[in-house]
């Protein structure tokens, strides 16, 4: 009885996983098909669509934009988020959790609402749409994750370590750079990579705030509108690689406990 229900549950769970993963697996497989239709049977494997992707005129600017935005978002939200997390960790618990709630508000909003709101905001203050506005918008929703991750590290941070540094002659700044930062560095880098991953695969907010350019996700969207070719799968696979790659590294780093 018991084993039978175990088997049934096992099958259900397996089916679920297949359902969740198969689109991703198909995406990757179809990016290597030799035909021009994304359906089975796949007659042969080829890099034809990857070559097509590389040859697409808008591909390189979109990749460059995605990377520039991703790196800037990672750096800005890591710096600002770390400072915020340190400030929060030094506050009384109640006040910290209220402020944390406020800061994480952008994450709770539906991205569509956030995107429209940001667009009308930029237009109303006459800020030209472009990479800057995308970066600002991404920092807005990526930052709370950085704050949460770094804050979790900071509350277990031994304040006596910093006090020791001060006691041994370090100014507050020296203590930060020689003691605090080296100790929390893996977590900060991990948080920055999470921010980069969030930024690279965002479509909705980018779509509303970029104006005329493209990032990889908006490029994919544009290509789908004119017709579905396996080149889209190649770009999709590339985005997948970028975000999964940085997430895996981030997980490795944030799990580290000096």
């Amino acid at each position, binding site marked *: 009885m018991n084993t039978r229900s175990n088997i049934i549950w096992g099958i259900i769970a397996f089916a679920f996983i297949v359902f969740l993963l198969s689109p991703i697996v198909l995406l990757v497989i179809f990016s290597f098909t030799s035909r021009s239709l994304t359906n089975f049977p796949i007659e042969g494997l080829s890099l034809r669509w990857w070559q097509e992707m590389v040859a697409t005129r808008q591909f390189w600017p979109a990749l460059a934009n995605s990377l520039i935005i991703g790196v800037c978002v990672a750096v800005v939200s890591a710096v600002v988020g770390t400072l915020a997390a340190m400030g929060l960790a030094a506050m009384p618990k109640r006040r910290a959790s209220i402020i944390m709630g406020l800061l994480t508000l952008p994450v709770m909003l539906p991205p569509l609402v956030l995107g429209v709101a940001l667009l009308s905001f930029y237009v109303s203050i006459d800020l030209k749409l472009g990479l800057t506005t995308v970066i600002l918008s991404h920092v807005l929703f990526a930052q709370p994750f950085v704050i949460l991750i770094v804050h979790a590290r900071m509350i277990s941070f*031994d304040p*006596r*370590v910093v*006090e*020791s*540094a*001060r*006691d*041994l*002659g*370090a*100014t*507050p700044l*020296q203590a930060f750079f*020689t*003691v605090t930062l*080296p*100790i929390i560095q893996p977590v900060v880098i991990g948080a920055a990579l999470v921010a980069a991953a969030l930024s690279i695969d965002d479509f909705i907010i980018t779509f509303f705030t970029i104006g005329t350019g493209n990032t990889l996700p908006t490029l994919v969207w544009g290509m789908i509108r004119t017709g579905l070719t396996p080149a889209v799968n190649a770009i999709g696979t590339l985005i997948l690689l970028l975000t999964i790659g940085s997430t895996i590294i981030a997980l490795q780093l944030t799990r580290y406990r*000096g």
Partner: protein
Amino acid sequence: MTALLKLRGISKRYGDAVAVQPLDLDIFAHDFVAILGPSGCGKTTLLRMIGGFVAPTSGTVEIDGRDVTRIGPEQRPTNTVFQGYGLFPHMTVRQNVGYGLRLQKKPKAEIADRVAEALRQSRLTEFADRSVTALSGGQQQRVALARALILRPKVLLLDEPLAALDLKLRHAMQDELRRLHQEFGGTFVFVTHDQGEALSLANRIAVMNAGRIEQEGDAETIYTAPATRFVATFIGEANLLPGERKAGQVKLEAGPSFADAGADEPVTTVVRPKAVRLLRAEEKADIEISGSLTEVVYLGDHIKCVVAVSDKQDVVVHLDVAVAPRPVVGEHVRLGWSIQQQRVVSA
């Protein structure tokens, strides 16, 4: 001789709670001072105000003639061994010990020499290149000490330096601290709630209670001449006999009276168990009191007797193990002690 460290009217309040009441304290060069008191009495807060980690609500801290009240810990001629040590987990033992010298931008060779010397003195040479997270509690303690002492502070501050160690290690580290104090020749101020530790290490003791220093003096004076009832009970065992002083005469509730100058008020007479004697038949003493023996316990180095001298008053007596004949429970005994061996304090 003027004091190396002068606290004047120093106090700290957190909101409505007063952690340290305004107090004065002088600490002289080469002293080994214990700040002794029960948990929560404000010892750590006081030490942290000296080190520059807590800004006092009022008062000043002066070290070696300089007012340091408003400057940060990095500019004070003090170094601290924190409770829990606060070692740098991302550095080796050697890097921890050399941290202060590196900040001072000393030449590389000098740093290497001085660190090696400090490691040798603290018997840490064999662990020099280990991460501090891979050390035992006692070794971490030695790293914390070496790291602070290498900067040759005018005052070394220690917050419950031995509290985290087991009993055996604690005794070893007490010897180590005493040795370091002698070799180093500096001024040590340490916080403890352990009266035995205070007596065995410090030459001067400041006893704190509820944010106040109740008495400050050399260890012997604190023990033999406690200024308050709290000091008497906190350090060593003491018999407390309540009474009333009127016109220079103290009358104890338990019977005897004696002359003692002072204001008319309720008082407590303090007498150590060791100062009380069992009187033989014709023997006289300044203060005599009698009662029946309710307890006799052999404790190895002494015999502890409890004598009920009234319904609500017991007197504890420590007798030499060689006493003969050994008193027995139920026996009616006369106790006595001399006036010099008791202290009369406000109740």
